[in-house]
């Protein structure tokens, strides 16, 4: 799973780089606009260490933000699964909130909380929270009648059992959603850093943008992509381990 993810990313990245270089040489663009391969390589050697640390910094914020978001989404999704007034309210509120671009709220957070760790964390969590919440709400609201009937008919159904049955039956979908939300968490953190933070790879990209240094941006994109590919592969592997342990298959 890990080699496949990394290979997929490398193919896409190389195609992207090839397209840029084709543009450069096809349109005779200067090294200032698109650096030559040797320039990109020099930038890689010069910035590799700093950019790797910045990417890991961003990744750490994204992972913590994603964990927070998943835990919140599971809690609210489980509470909102019932066809009660509260359940309907939670569902409607979730659908309405997710329609609003969270990135647009980022400046408010920076004004209120400054440009430190907490602001980046909140933006990361908020951006990946709503898609996960909607999936969890969808999964938890849908009864698995052919399993649940017996427990309801015999008065054995408890909310814990209901959640366990629905989680078990939708384990593949949940794993996919959680692995997919990793990208959102990373994107959220980078966007936050890009707007006003003082650390992380988004902040590094902002500096590179001010310097109009495409080489640095390409290196940053490479490190972001490879990190997300590895993280997603790890999440998918974890999902498989949980599935094997739980289903015996």
């Amino acid at each position, binding site marked *: 799973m890990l080699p496949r993810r990394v290979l997929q990313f490398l193919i896409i990245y190389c195609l992207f780089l090839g397209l840029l270089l084709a543009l450069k040489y096809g349109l005779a663009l200067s090294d200032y606009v698109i650096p030559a391969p040797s320039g990109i390589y020099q930038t890689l050697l010069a910035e590799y260490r700093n950019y790797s640390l910045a990417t890991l910094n961003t990744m750490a914020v994204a992972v913590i933000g994603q964990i927070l978001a998943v835990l919140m989404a599971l809690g609210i999704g489980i509470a909102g699964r019932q066809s009660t007034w509260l359940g309907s309210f939670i569902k409607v509120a979730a659908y309405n909130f997710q329609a609003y671009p969270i990135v647009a709220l980022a400046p408010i957070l920076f004004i209120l909380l400054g440009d430190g760790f907490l602001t980046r964390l909140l933006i990361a969590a908020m951006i990946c929270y709503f898609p996960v919440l909607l999936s969890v709400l969808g999964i938890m609201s849908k009864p698995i009648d052919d*399993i649940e*009937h017996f427990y309801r*008919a*015999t008065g054995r159904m408890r909310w814990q059992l209901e959640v366990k049955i629905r989680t078990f039956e939708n384990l593949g979908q949940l794993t996919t959603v959680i692995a997919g939300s990793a990208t959102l968490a990373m994107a959220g953190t980078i966007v936050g850093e890009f707007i006003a933070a003082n650390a992380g790879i988004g902040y590094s990209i902002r500096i590179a943008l001010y310097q109009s240094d495409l080489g640095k941006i390409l290196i940053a994109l490479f490190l972001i992509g490879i990190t997300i590919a590895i993280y997603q592969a790890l999440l998918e592997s974890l999902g498989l381990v949980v599935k094997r342990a739980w289903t015996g298959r």
Partner: protein
Amino acid sequence: MSLAVDTLAFAYPGADVPLFSGVSFRLAEPGFHSFFGPSGVGKTTLARIIAGDIAAFSGEIDAGDLARSLYSHNKERLPGWSGVARHLERVVTPALHGRMAELIAIFGLGECIDSRFDQLSMGQQNRVNLIRYLLQDCDLLIMDESLANVDERTRERIILAIKAMFPQRYFIYISHNVVEVAKFCQDILVFRGRGKQPQTALVRGCDMRREGDFSRAALDATLLEIMNAA
């Protein structure tokens, strides 16, 4: 103790004509009874009304002392996170574990009882599901195609065992096997073809209780009566 249904009618929301109307019958004694008829005439719907799963109907149901009714069907599954034996142990009270072991042997499930539910054949799955329902505290158990995909000899053994082990319980057995229904059931509510009035007719079955304990002539007469009623 009896189950009496009087002028029961039901229509699905938005339907132009009711699924059935004027259905009346009385099951006076505990034992094996049946709903029989072609697909789509309302056997399952009637069963679910009696079990209390559907409330929007007209007419009267007098369940008398039948305090608890359960409806089971052949599409039910057990959760897949542990083996069948473990699930059964959890949903059957410890006092009935001896009877559970007996049923597992009679139902021919001894070799596969530690497997997970999805590793079983469809017939085995249906038998496991039936065992867990049989061991619940209920006065009426509706078995909707509960022995589907089970071979004829095993079905016969299971039905006779159920009748011997639970003589005080009402069973309503829904099946499309006319010979089986005629042979083992006491009262058979035959759903007649569309447009016929009344929509149902109650036919007395052979109610076989032991292997070979029935007359061929009586079975033929019951089969004829069911065919005429249908």
